[in-house]
């Protein structure tokens, strides 16, 4: 299943490994910072799952297993770049500096967005599989017209790679040489569909058929994801055109808290991937190569716990929105039917008045 061509810089055991084209440029501090990002992402994700179990969230989409892919890509992004995520990119959102509570608004079902996408240069979540890939290419065409050195990242999964919109976005990116990086997290599953249902051959080959490079990176190796994505982004910024990065990783948990993966996959598979855990291998590297002590790891864990607790408080404090807010921003300009709805709601006594 794992391709010969896979770019890996750190083995599951946390040992560095040489690659002909990529070398890790990260300092010990930077690796440690990424380790911290990953631990926090995982901790917050677990908090999401438990809050959902407690009835505090409508849904949660766990990211466990994909932390290296997301933190590697998230840290590779420059502040000038713009990201078009799906519903599962919590690690990238973290790297963009979006307060975790904001990612939770959608899952608490109090919002369909949650943050200012222009401020963080990180778009609102796209739930309809693949739609965002075209937005990314269009945005990138805008970047070209502005003559600006920015790159755009389009996130999608192995499942979404079958959608016409993703495939058309490949045609367009190639045709316009758009500064876009297609960041595909192949986590082996799309709900119950194995990635082999979407493609019999490694997914990254697909890009080549459209005329731009595709590359498969060990998605559980944060060093490799960082370098591969960074180079792709740099290349895009200077007019080198699109790249597809396939981060080969694994969804350790359920698709969402509504899902029951025991119906479609065997434990043995999960076990295999546990040995490739993205967090553990960085920890091993830090301990061995940089002599990071257990107490330091414990501090990170404690920090993550504290953040999770703070987050929990924030989320629980999110009350039911005023129903009247449903009329806000439905349109940019006044609209008679929106006004009619507002008036009706006031008349029904559902809300005190315009929000």
């Amino acid at each position, binding site marked *: 299943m794992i391709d010969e061509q896979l770019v890996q810089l750190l083995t599951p055991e946390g040992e560095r490994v040489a690659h002909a084209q990529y070398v890790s440029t990260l300092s010990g501090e930077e690796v440690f910072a990424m380790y911290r990002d990953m631990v926090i992402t995982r901790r917050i994700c677990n908090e999401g799952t438990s809050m959902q179990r407690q009835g505090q969230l409508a849904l949660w989409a766990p990211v466990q297993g994909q932390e290296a892919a997301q933190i590697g890509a998230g840290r590779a992004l420059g502040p000038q770049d713009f990201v078009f995520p799906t*519903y599962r990119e919590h690690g990238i959102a973290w790297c963009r500096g979006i307060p975790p509570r904001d990612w939770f608004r959608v899952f*608490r079902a109090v919002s369909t967005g949650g943050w200012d996408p222009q401020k963080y240069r990180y778009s609102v979540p796209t*739930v309809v599989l693949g739609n965002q890939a075209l937005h990314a290419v269009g945005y990138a065409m805008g970047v070209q017209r502005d003559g600006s050195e920015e790159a755009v990242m389009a996130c999608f999964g192995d499942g979404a790679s*079958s959608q*016409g919109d993703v495939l058309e976005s490949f045609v367009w990116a190639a045709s316009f040489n758009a500064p876009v990086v297609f960041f595909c997290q192949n986590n082996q599953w799309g709900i119950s569909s194995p990635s082999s249902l979407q493609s019999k051959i490694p997914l990254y080959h697909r890009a080549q058929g459209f005329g731009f490079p595709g590359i498969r990176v060990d998605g559980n190796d944060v060093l490799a994801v960082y370098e591969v994505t960074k180079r792709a982004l740099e290349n895009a910024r200077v007019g080198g055109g699109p790249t597809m990065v396939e981060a080969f990783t694994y969804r350790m948990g359920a698709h969402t808290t509504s899902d029951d993966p025991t119906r*479609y996959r065997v434990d043995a598979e999960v076990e295999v991937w546990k040995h490739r855990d993205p967090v553990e291998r960085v920890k091993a590297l830090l301990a061995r190569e940089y002599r990071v002590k257990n107490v330091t790891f414990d501090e990170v864990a404690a920090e993550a716990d504290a953040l999770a607790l703070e987050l929990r408080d924030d989320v629980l404090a999110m009350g039911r929105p005023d129903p009247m807010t449903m009329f806000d921003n439905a349109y940019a300009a006044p609209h008679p039917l929106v006004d009619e709805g507002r008036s009706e709601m006031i008349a029904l006594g559902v809300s005190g008045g315009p929000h």
Partner: protein
Amino acid sequence: MATTTMTMAKALNEGLRRAMDKNKKVLLMGEDIGKLGGVFRITDGLQKDFGEDRVIDAPLAESAIVGTAVGLAIRGYRTVVEIQFDGFVYPAFDQIVSQVAKLHKRSDGVYTMGLVIRIPFQGGIGAIEHHSESPEAYFAQTAGLRVVSCSTPNDAYWMIQQAIEHDDPIIFCEPKSRYWEKGEVDLENSPRGLFDAVVRREGADVTLIGYGASVKTMLRAAETASGEGVSIEVVDARSIAPLDLDVMAASLEKTGRLVVVQEAPHTASVGSEIVAELSERCFYSLRAPGLRVSGYHVPYPPSRIEDEYRPSVDRILDAVDRVMGFES
């Protein structure tokens, strides 16, 4: 009469099973419908029993799901397509409007577009965006399609079988919020034709018309109103396109007052159609204008406030008050 109690989800499952037993050409196709049994478990166990060739786990692309079902129809198969959620039918819209709806005509009747597109629709389950939409008006507007919706387990059991047997393509709208409610299912006799509306509760003052999840809400409204001395007749449209206007008009001739209930926004909706048609048919009998209680004209809101978006008992009763008070 062999009746048994089951949920609507189970009734659909049993209906599909029976249709597959009867006719080897019946296939199921959709995302996650095999081992997982679909996200709502409607197809639970069917792949195990009928094999992967008849219960096809589809790659994730709705246009392809419907487009290949069209090809299978041309080959003589009858495919029941599952769209995972209402909001994900739009990638298949082109195939539905330009091909599914038109190929029988384009082939001068040679191709039978006997396929059923199952869509769990409407809101009420506290879901995230795109999981609570009511796209029925788009399909009702489209010549060449038929659109139906079940509101009880018994209807679900029979309507899915009737839809599969029917030679025209059918958009089969399932009120997902009612999947887990139980009801009696008569396994021997179908209650009525696929395109027949039915009076679910008799009444004298106001006719409420709706379908899918709205039927239960209308019945609750009728119950409340009866406590206040207003007698409400509740019509379950069942067939959204074509509408069974005879049953509706008969009710209206009696009550003279009409309120249509739907979760979709009201512009160019099925509710508009019902009001327009009945305004014409029952011009002299109408004692008040036909009103619509619909979803508001805004994108479906975050589900924490969906109860204020969807027609509630309160909003229905408010409309009932308005039609009752109209002449005064």
